[in-house]
């Protein structure tokens, strides 16, 4: 990321109250469901499994809605790339309060790089001032899309944020990093990815669920956006993690040291 370029962008666009916020969301297996591997090990079982919005994406939607409600943004657009039933997840975001939705249909859920490219194309059409993503989706745990998108756009990036505000025309974020918390000021436009502690997403109210039906949902394709989403990765095999084997009781410290040295080979 080039800091200089961000400043130039900032001068052109700045953070304005007419800002649009784009929130990409993903449909994943419901967090409460126990995931099972398909018998042919080609992936996880998705048939008749309860699906829901990725929990980090819910937090992203909530963050966008709060900025709009605080008068910092004008419109919240949600976008989802993947199979047709992603529209249900978009409806959920509309019911939470997003203004409109874009669905980019594809047979399978595209890989992170493909999603980032699709989002770049959407950003170029919609010209949002801020893109808010979940830090990762709980299915693949890739943690890549936001970073790739910021690189493709050459926009400021704040990852794993637990605080977000707009002050003096810039985004102030707190990042959760290994050593503690890091406060950053990002000039807009920017990409941020959200962590668990940023907020607690709201429930959709009943009137908003009913209104969501009437909100616009645009349907796009990768081809229309001129993006190649051919998978670059090959899945060899999916396996459930090995179950932990039972512990052993050692008789004395000498035996423990011996095992650590010779069996575990850690000391």
């Amino acid at each position, binding site marked *: 990321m080039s800091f200089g370029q961000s400043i130039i962008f900032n001068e052109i666009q700045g953070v304005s109250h007419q800002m649009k916020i784009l929130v990409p969301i993903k449909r994943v297996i419901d967090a409460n469901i126990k995931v099972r591997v398909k018998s042919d090990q080609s992936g996880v079982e998705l*048939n*008749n499994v309860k699906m829901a919005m990725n929990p980090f994406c819910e937090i992203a939607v909530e963050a966008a809605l709060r900025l709009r409600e605080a008068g910092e943004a004008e419109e919240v657009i949600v976008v989802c790339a993947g199979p047709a039933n992603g529209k249900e997840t978009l409806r959920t975001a509309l019911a939470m309060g997003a203004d409109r939705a874009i669905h980019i249909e594809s047979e399978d859920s595209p890989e992170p790089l493909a999603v980032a490219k699709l989002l770049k194309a959407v950003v170029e059409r919609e010209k949002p001032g801020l893109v808010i993503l979940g830090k990762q989706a709980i299915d693949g745990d890739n943690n890549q899309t936001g970073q790739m998108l910021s690189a493709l756009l050459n926009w400021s990036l704040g990852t794993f944020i637990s605080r977000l505000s707009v002050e003096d025309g810039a985004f102030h974020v707190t990042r959760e990093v290994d050593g503690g918390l890091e406060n950053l000021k990002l000039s807009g436009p920017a990409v941020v990815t959200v962590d668990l502690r940023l907020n607690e997403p709201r*429930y959709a109210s009943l009137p908003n669920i009913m209104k969501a*039906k009437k909100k616009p949902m645009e349907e796009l394709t990768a081809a229309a956006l001129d993006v190649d989403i051919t998978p670059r990765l090959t899945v060899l095999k999916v396996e459930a993690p090995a179950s932990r084997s039972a512990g052993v009781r050692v008789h004395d410290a000498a035996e423990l040291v011996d095992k650590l040295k010779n069996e575990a080979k850690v000391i």
Partner: protein
Amino acid sequence: MASYSAPLRDMRFVYHELFDSSDISALPGFEEATPDLIDAVLEEAAKVCENELFPINRSGDEEGCRYHQGGEVTTPSGFRECYRAYAEAGWIGLSSDPQYGGQGLPAAISTLLEEMVCSSNIAFGTYVGLSRGAYRAIAAFGNDTLKTRYLPKLTSGEWSGTMCLTEPQCGTDLGLLRTRAEPNADGSYRVTGNKIFISAGEHDLTENIIHLVLARLPDAPAGVRGISLFLVPKFLPNPDGDPGERNGVLCTALENKMGIKASATCAMSFDQATGWLIGSAHKGMQAMFVMMNDARLGVGVQGLGLSESAYQAAVEYARERLQGRSVTGTKHPDKPADPILVHPDIRRTLLTMRALTEGNRAMATWIARHLDLRERAEDETTRASANDFVQLMTPIAKAFFTDYGFDITNMGLQVYGGHGYIRENGVEQYVRDSRIAQIYEGANGVQALDLVGRKVPAHTGRYLRQFFHPVQSWIESHAFTPALQPFVMPLAKAFGRLQLATGHIAQVGLKNPNEAAAASSEYLRLFGLVALGYLWARMVEVALTHENGADQGFYDAKVATARHYMERILPQTGSLFAAIMAGASTMMDFPDEAF
């Protein structure tokens, strides 16, 4: 610790597949209630119930409501916040008229929401349930002034409602009611008297409480024909509609009780309290009956909701609890014992709980659909026959669901053994919470009397046709479908018993009412079992169309549960039939002093 996850798959099955939901969304005003919307609504409702209502269920039971000097009542921790969130999200007004801020969704959906609320926190449900009852009575019988003043606030949940019938000397027999109402010059009334056992009579959830009070006017005839219905707010609304001056109504005590401890059961004193007449003078019982008939289905759903929670808790425990070995040999050699799920007696218990709960859910939806048809169908005949059906089935649903609600929660406790009897696991609360539903809103014995005394003979059996005709014709048209044989045959047999018992009661009851009354509870149970038999057979019919499709496990379980119902539960109609036919002499010839 028990958990709860809303049975959305089964709800969708009942709403869309067992019955045709498109005939509900075709009703005027329900155009929006398309399947995708209904699913989205149920899904979000489930989240609220599972994540907000359920977590304060047990703490609410432990803490209970508190009475404070001066007549204030506080609800347990978390109830205020939860209520506010629930009201603000619009759930209270789900089926209320959009004219008053409601969402105008079908009663059939509202009933499914009620089930989830009762499963997750029945005490919480009493507050919102009573507001709905008050809303309905005012909407049906109130004048325009009352409607515009009170319905929007009851819809938004800013204000809540109560039903004030019971007095110390007057429970089932409302003819004994003493509370008085005297007219004021301005058209309002002064209401004076003491009410007891008033649910939600006082609490800290809303800024105002709207009491619907049964009382007598000065010129009232004695008995039930002299009762009028009044609206008495805790705070008299200002001209701008906000709560103003405190009215002469005070909570004087809270009852200590067995269950629903987070629901405030209040003794209320009315002292020259200002009120307004709802409907006509002396016609309060008619208004009350309209309200109560709907409320009775709601109380039935309380039994259903708790049955579902108890079933889920029991299944979870039966999978985990290791005790004993399978009688046919060890199933889990790696473990110190097999999970109790292997034992036939535990499996019998769980399947019995399940078959009755899913059957009752189907029946609740069946009835609720007729509430929608009664209100909105375009042709008069459909509306009238829907009303006949609702009249007939409501006392059955109320008593059958709540009697089984208690039985099923008790079965759930038994699966937990000693760990169910202690409080920690939360399942003994289900037993205590379910018990009241057999008593209030007309004790179940009185529901049975309503069935044999009013509903069966009404218009020379006209109500009965709405049940007997469809069941009869379904049996006839499916009698020779091979795959349905194991279901149609037991149903036909049980249905025959119901027809015979009905004829018998009509005949002997005419000569000696004691005969009909003595058979009434068994007759109601017999009726309910046959109704469930019919619904289970129809559920099988639907499930069998899904062979080798997606979701096969769900449909296979439906058919298997239906078999358990037909083979292990429906045969009880045989002993009920024998008891009914035995007549009243054992109990009526027994000398009073020998008791």
